[in-house]
């Protein structure tokens, strides 16, 4: 998948590029509206990550023109302004999602995947996870034909780890994903342990869930 990152803060753009490249995305960078438009004219992208405060104008003004060149791309607005009007204006102009800065790259990637599933109609078969199968779209985890009952938060947790498989996610990253801005790091990280314990219990009934690893002192990882 091809991604255009329109972000004037170069260090930030490089970090995003770095991260997305590892997740097998192909990235282009643009630091101004003009630059961004030029790239959009000559290339076709699946994702356009758009910062709003650009040196040569408001990123929002770029959106309608961008849609002309890349009507099928998914647009995600990234901004430090984070106010409601921007969000509404952005979504009105056809953006697919909105992430207020500072955001976690893991969160960005999981949103991109969610959009991809929704927008690009990626015909996702059931994805294997150990002896289990995961359906991210329908939010199901199956063992052969049996559906395993997980609570909403438990599934969120498992799918987040699953999306970022082979990567250790810290308790804080997990609780931030689950409870968003309401997460209270020191406080809620304990509940991650409780949830993981529950998930393991529910999975172990059917088959060993040893793909879900505890990394001592750090967090959890799904090993594939």
């Amino acid at each position, binding site marked *: 998948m091809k991604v255009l990152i329109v972000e004037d*803060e170069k*260090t*930030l753009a490089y*970090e*995003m590029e*770095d*991260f997305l490249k*590892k997740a097998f995305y192909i990235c282009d960078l643009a630091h101004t509206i003009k630059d961004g438009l030029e790239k959009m004219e000559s290339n076709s992208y699946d994702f356009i990550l758009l910062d709003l405060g650009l040196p040569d104008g408001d990123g929002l003004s770029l959106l309608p023109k961008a849609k002309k060149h890349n009507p099928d791309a998914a647009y995600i607005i990234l901004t*430090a*302004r*984070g*106010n*409601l*009007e921007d969000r509404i204006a952005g979504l009105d102009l056809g953006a697919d999602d909105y992430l207020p*800065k*500072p*955001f*976690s*790259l*893991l969160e960005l990637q999981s949103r991109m995947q969610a959009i991809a599933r929704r927008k690009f109609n990626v015909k996702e078969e059931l994805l294997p996870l150990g002896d289990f199968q995961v359906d991210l779209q329908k939010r199901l985890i199956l063992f052969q034909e049996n559906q395993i009952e997980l609570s909403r938060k438990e599934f969120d947790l498992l799918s987040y780890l699953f999306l970022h498989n*082979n*990567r*250790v996610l*810290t308790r*804080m*990253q997990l609780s*931030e994903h689950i*409870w968003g*801005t*309401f997460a*209270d*790091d*020191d*406080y*809620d990280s*304990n*509940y991650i342990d*409780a949830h993981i314990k529950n998930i393991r219990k529910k999975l172990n009934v059917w088959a060993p869930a040893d793909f879900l690893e505890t990394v001592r*002192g*750090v967090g959890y990882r799904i090993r594939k």
Partner: protein
Amino acid sequence: MKLSSKLILFITSSKLVVVLLFVFSLPFLVSQIVSEYTNYSLRSQQDKVINVVQKNGIQHYLQGDDSYGSYTMLKEEYIALEPAAKNKHIDTIKTAQRIVERDTLTYRILIHTFNYDQKNYLLEIGKSISSINQYNKTLQKTALYVLMGLIALTLLIDLIFTRILIKPLGKIIKSKLINRKFPFKDYSPPVPTSTQDFKYLDESLILLMDQINEAFEKEREFTANASHELMTPISILQNKMENLLGDENLPESVVLKIIEMMKTLSRLKKISNALLLISRIENQQFVKSAHVKPSVLINEVLEEINHRLLDQEIELKVDLKTDQMLVNVNQDLLFQLFYNLINNAIKYNVYQGSILITDSHTPENGYSIMIQDTGIGIAEEDLDFIFDRFRKANLSENVGYGLGLSIVKSIAQYHDIEILVSSKVKEGTTFTLIFPAK
């Protein structure tokens, strides 16, 4: 007491004192004046008598008699003339009784001796006291009536004038102080007045409020800008750390250090976010158009926060009887408000404590919701500061970052919700939200 009432009271009572003083001193004054006048008229009569005696000769009056006496028909006045001992010298005015034709009457009498043809004579001129006093009463009455009339007139004028005079002050107080809520956004025009002092007061108040507004505006702007400007560097740091953690070859000690850094960064992020949220609320950047039921909101909060309740085995009871609809509110903000209050009720509770959420609707107080916990409570001396930013009550452990209640306060203010807090250390705290009557 209001200035106008004070002035009215003072003016009225001072006039009353004048009237009373006058009423009490009037008889004395009148009699004093009358007696002065009597003395004066007696003296002038004496001069006239001596003049006519000099002119006509004493024999003209004595006509061979020893003495001369004359009185008016009603015996109100008399004049007597008689020879006196040679060495007798009297010149006095006194009040004494005289028998005039078998009537004993009290007179004011002038007694005067004088020489005529080497002989000493005694002259007596008398005026009856009753004739002297006959005008006293009427005089007093008239004086009293005139005075009362004048006093009433001046009182009226005074009151009208003071009212006109201090009217601008009332206007200043009304337009500048009462009914004005901080921040003073609504423009209040200068109050027209010709009184220099009021003008000065009014101008100073306008100036002061402008200055306060400006300072407040600057602070708000600063908070918004600072927290906003912090977001980009925080983003960079966070993403760099995330990318670092993605490296599987890192030694464990480094990983742990990065995690610690991320935690610290997350704290910084939360503080910035909270400050930004407060300044956005204060800038009225949220639309208040939702209609929500408190029970719905509270259920949403509980869904989000339930795990914390379970962990502490805290019993939470929601007993909303009226379940009033809250109109023209911002749902996200109210969610945050209830979230923060319930979160605090859990955070500062004791193991196996309880939380009770109730509501009430009374005609006088309107609709209110109470959140009551059995937690550690807040010391009385800390109660005034719990809504201040970064101010935490003296707790043994450092919990939270001290902005939760500031956010609550901003949201409440934005919705005109009044918050009452009552607390007892080791017994618990009750937050009461009083919603505005719509």
